[in-house]
């Protein structure tokens, strides 16, 4: 593999692992504080799945990079500008409504995305995708059901879900914004162009928003800069400060 393709593959793998890590950490912030015990357990289990997937993605990223770093180094010893996650996943949880709607937007992307990655020419990518897809499908069932229950719930739950939708919507476009790394992955048969999934995602979202009696904004404006690492929100640094404090203070500390 030539160096340019290898660099793109590492960037691609970091995007996958950083997405699951950042969303996994945000979701874990609910542990012990969710609105109901069942939801607390569900959120903690969802976070656990996402962090498990992170070990697979970042583990492979570290191997391909080949400089001796491990998945743990990548998770706990990189700074905000090295992270390549979607901006949507790093913004604060705010309330349960925003948390579950974000999970739905992500799940509705991950399911067809991981499904396509199962056919990757890179068999490690295909294996991680097949493993993660089973978990993502389960997450999608729950997040879409819960979005519908809250949207089509009481006046209060509906208005909070609509506020969450208005807030998150401008962040969703970044999932489908192709760049040079996506072109390189697509050219090598490792991954499809994310933009090819946009229509299907819009269809799934429209179906669930209709059942949830929520109104999708017309705007096509999209915040960008997370996948490339060039412009994260101010929230990521604060999140990493909490997530990374132990490894920053005691590098290499282990159980």
């Amino acid at each position, binding site marked *: 593999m030539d160096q340019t393709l290898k660099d793109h593959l590492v960037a691609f793998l970091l995007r996958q692992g950083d997405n699951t890590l950042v969303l996994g950490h945000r979701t874990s912030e609910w542990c012990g504080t969710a609105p109901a015990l*069942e*939801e607390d*357990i*569900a959120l*903690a*289990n*969802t976070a*656990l*799945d*996402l*962090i*498990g*997937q992170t*070990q*697979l993605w970042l583990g492979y990223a570290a191997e391909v990079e080949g400089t001796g770093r491990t998945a743990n180094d990548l998770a706990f010893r990189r700074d905000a500008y090295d992270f390549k996650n979607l901006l949507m996943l790093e913004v604060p949880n705010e309330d349960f409504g925003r948390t579950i709607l974000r999970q739905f937007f992500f799940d509705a992307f991950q399911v067809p995305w991981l499904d396509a990655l199962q056919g990757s020419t890179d*068999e490690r990518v*295909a*294996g*991680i995708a*097949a*493993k*993660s*897809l*089973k*978990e993502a*499908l*389960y997450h999608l*069932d*729950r997040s879409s059901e819960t979005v519908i229950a809250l949207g089509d719930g009481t006046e209060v739950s509906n208005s909070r879900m609509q506020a969450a939708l208005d807030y998150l919507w401008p962040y969703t476009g970044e999932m489908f914004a192709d760049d040079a790394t996506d072109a390189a992955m697509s050219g090598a048969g490792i991954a499809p162009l994310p933009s090819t999934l946009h229509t299907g995602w819009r269809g799934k979202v429209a179906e669930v928003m209709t059942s949830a009696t929520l109104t999708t904004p017309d705007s096509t404006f999209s915040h960008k800069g997370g996948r490339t690492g060039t412009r994260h929100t101010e929230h990521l640094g604060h999140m990493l400060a909490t997530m990374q404090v132990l490894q920053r203070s005691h590098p290499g500390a282990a159980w």
Partner: protein
Amino acid sequence: MSVATDITTAQIWAWLDTVPDPEIPVISVVDLGVIRDVTVTDGRVKVTITPTYSGCPAMAVIAMDIETALAKHGVHQLELDTRIAPPWTTDWLSDKGRARLETYGIAPPQVAGGPERCPHCKSTEVEKISAFGSTPCKAQWRCTACLEPFDYFKCI
């Protein structure tokens, strides 16, 4: 303590079938379907395991329990390999394991996506409480006949 000399793969499988799942101790790691392969070459044993869920915290304990159990039978040259493809599925649960789950009070997985019946009173009048439960592999359900809540082993 015996010393491993002419051990066979069948013997290793039988020993592994006595290693309980750390979170659901009524079934073995073989019943759970996480043992994917066993080979014996010149007295060196290689066991290939697969995780149930990618983040399942029990996997480290399972690996340690396998090492301990086999060492008791004199297997000291053990290599543990982890494989994620093809991904674990509840189809790999043994029939013995499914039956033991139900006796223990955990409804075994069903392709339909929910428990067939209450593991306590066997009523088919059941409802979901939560899609998740006390471990990554379980969900919480309730019987509307005997009113007992119970765990359901998620079907994936």
